[in-house]
């Protein structure tokens, strides 16, 4: 089965600081997705990356896909308390199942 390992597992940053979350796949990535989850709630789709070297941005969040390394990174610039939550990467698999990573819990201190 496809495995997605995220690092760090948790992150505590001061408001205004930049941060990066990484997602590493044990297998070739067909598509890499980033979701955000508020504690105990459903997931919100952030971005989808499909091509090696692809980079997408939305507001202060930028995601990159390094297909050769089977990795993706999510970078938040000038973090705000509203960025707090659990960030999950997800990926398609050849069997058409969708797998999630282990998750990264982000706390932003005002």
């Amino acid at each position, binding site marked *: 089965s496809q495995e*997605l390992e995220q690092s760090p597992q948790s992150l505590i940053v001061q408001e205004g600081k930049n941060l990066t979350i990484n997602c590493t796949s044990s297998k070739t990535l067909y598509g890499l997705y980033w979701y955000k989850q508020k504690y105990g709630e*459903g*997931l*919100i789709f952030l971005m989808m990356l499909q091509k090696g070297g692809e980079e997408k941005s939305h507001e202060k969040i930028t995601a990159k896909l390094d297909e050769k390394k089977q990795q993706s990174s999510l970078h938040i610039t000038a973090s705000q308390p509203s960025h707090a939550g659990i960030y999950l990467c*997800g990926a398609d698999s050849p069997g058409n199942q969708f*797998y999630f*990573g282990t998750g990264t819990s982000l706390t932003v201190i005002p």
Partner: protein
Amino acid sequence: DAGVTQSPTHLIKTRGQQVTLRCSPKSGHDTVSWYQQALGQGPQFIFQYYEEEERQRGNFPDRFSGHQFPNYSSELNVNALLLGDSALYLCASSFRDATGELFFGEGSRLTVL
């Protein structure tokens, strides 16, 4: 345009009981996937339904079963509940069996005592 709705939002059961969780997909979506999310972990894929049939299944025992109705809504049933079944159960909908941009409900929080 209603998004994915799940019910109930919270419930408490005891070991050995059975539970049914319900999900209505986003308007226009015909595929429903169910996930189990234990505290502090990422969601784990249970199964996916399309055209009223189970299309894919994750590594979950037969105690976990499901159903999809003609209106695309879905149910997740868990029999002989164990303490370890306590989790947030998430329903996600999509169009056909496309994966990726899944739309999630708020989840059903199940506590097994």
